[in-house]
């Protein structure tokens, strides 16, 4: 593989060694904004989340309903396919396990499609949003999640590239077959595991 003459690069601090997936760089305290569409500005009382599709009872929560459920905090790292990672950050919301339990996935449900108020969609295997690995969150570092980062409410699936963590999420649809979402139709990987660099269609 070709070496770029004169490039030495900036090595990461040893304390953060092992936390950056391949090809990622640490943005430190920064948090880049990347959005494909015009950003919606929703009041808290305009926010609701529905879990539907292959469930025994389609269930809708207002933001206030969600905030009345037991809270759950994720403290850890997030990774964007555009190669930035943000390490050691905190989000608070509710675990998706709790919401799925309320709606009752049918036996044959195997995937979810997360939908945003903008029409943005992203697909995930059901097993990747259960077992304490996915949340809907309204709080970042103790403050309301700002609109440019998906506030008032976004999905958080931090073990996958961050386009899977749909901003302004309004619906989680359970499906039997995998239905590619927005970026997935535009050439991004179906799953998006940062540790194996599943960035684009065709990556292993």
């Amino acid at each position, binding site marked *: *593989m070709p070496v*770029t003459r004169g490039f030495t690069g*900036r090595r990461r601090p040893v304390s953060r060694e092992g936390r950056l997936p391949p090809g990622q760089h640490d*943005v430190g305290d920064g948090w880049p904004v990347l*959005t*494909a569409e015009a950003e919606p500005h929703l009041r808290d009382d305009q926010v609701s989340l529905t879990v539907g599709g292959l469930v025994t009872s389609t269930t809708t929560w207002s933001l206030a309903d969600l905030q009345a459920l037991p809270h759950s905090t994720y403290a850890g790292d997030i990774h964007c396919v555009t190669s930035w990672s943000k390490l050691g950050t905190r989000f608070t919301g509710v675990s998706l396990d709790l919401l799925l339990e309320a709606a009752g996935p049918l036996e044959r449900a195997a995937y979810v499609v997360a939908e945003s108020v903008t*029409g943005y969609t992203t697909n995930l295997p059901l097993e990747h949003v259960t077992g304490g690995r996915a949340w809907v969150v309204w709080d970042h570092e103790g403050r309301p999640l700002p609109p440019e980062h998906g506030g008032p409410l976004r999905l958080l699936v931090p073990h996958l590239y961050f386009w899977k963590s749909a901003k302004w999420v309004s619906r989680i649809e359970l499906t039997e077959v995998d239905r*590619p979402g*927005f970026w997935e139709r535009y*050439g991004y990987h179906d799953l998006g595991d940062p540790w194996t660099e599943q960035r684009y269609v065709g990556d292993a």
Partner: protein
Amino acid sequence: MPDAPLAGTPEIPGAWTTGTLVDVRRDGRLAYLRLALETPFTHAAGQHCVVRLRAEDGYTAQRSYSIASAPGDDHLELCVEVMPDGEVSGHLHDEARVGDTVEVRGPIGRWFTWGGRTPSIAVVGGTGVVPVVSMLRHARTLGTGERLRVVAVTRTLAELPYADELLAHGAFVATTRENRGDRVAATPYPDEVAPLAAGVERAYVCGSPGFASYGVRLLGEVGVRKDIIRVEQFGPTG
């Protein structure tokens, strides 16, 4: 934003290929780079690619850059703005020279693209002009330049990448820190943008996150529907 997937098979970004710098031009904070790719790929106007630099010991760093060259150009052209402490942009701006090699992967992004025919407006700021330069060059090839109206916002004309090319195309350039002719320094006024937005079927906004919010708002003020706006944002991500 719900939108049917593009017709045909989405082009899959290829494997990493080696790019050799065949031209490097520096202008203030910008570096214009042209690369010959070992395995060339065909991009659509508006797409980006990833550039990866590799040190002697195998350490690598990679960043995404919009493509300025037109589809069909023999070389891949990028315009890189040097970021404070930019690990990749700093190297490309300060150190890179003709004959050096980097790794390149692309094309990426099937959303922020223009096929050359849909009547469109683009509102761009800073290096956000780069993907639109590819669109303009594509339009010149097709002879459809009148279908892409461009509003470029910059502090001064000297800081605007590809300023001459944009002006030659007939872009409306709003300078915010210097007067130009009779126009007093200011961001674009709705009455300056409205005639350009009339009848468009798609809108593109590209720039920093702050600029993107502004661009979307401006388009809204002149009656462009939110669901036809496609946004590309970038930031100083190191």
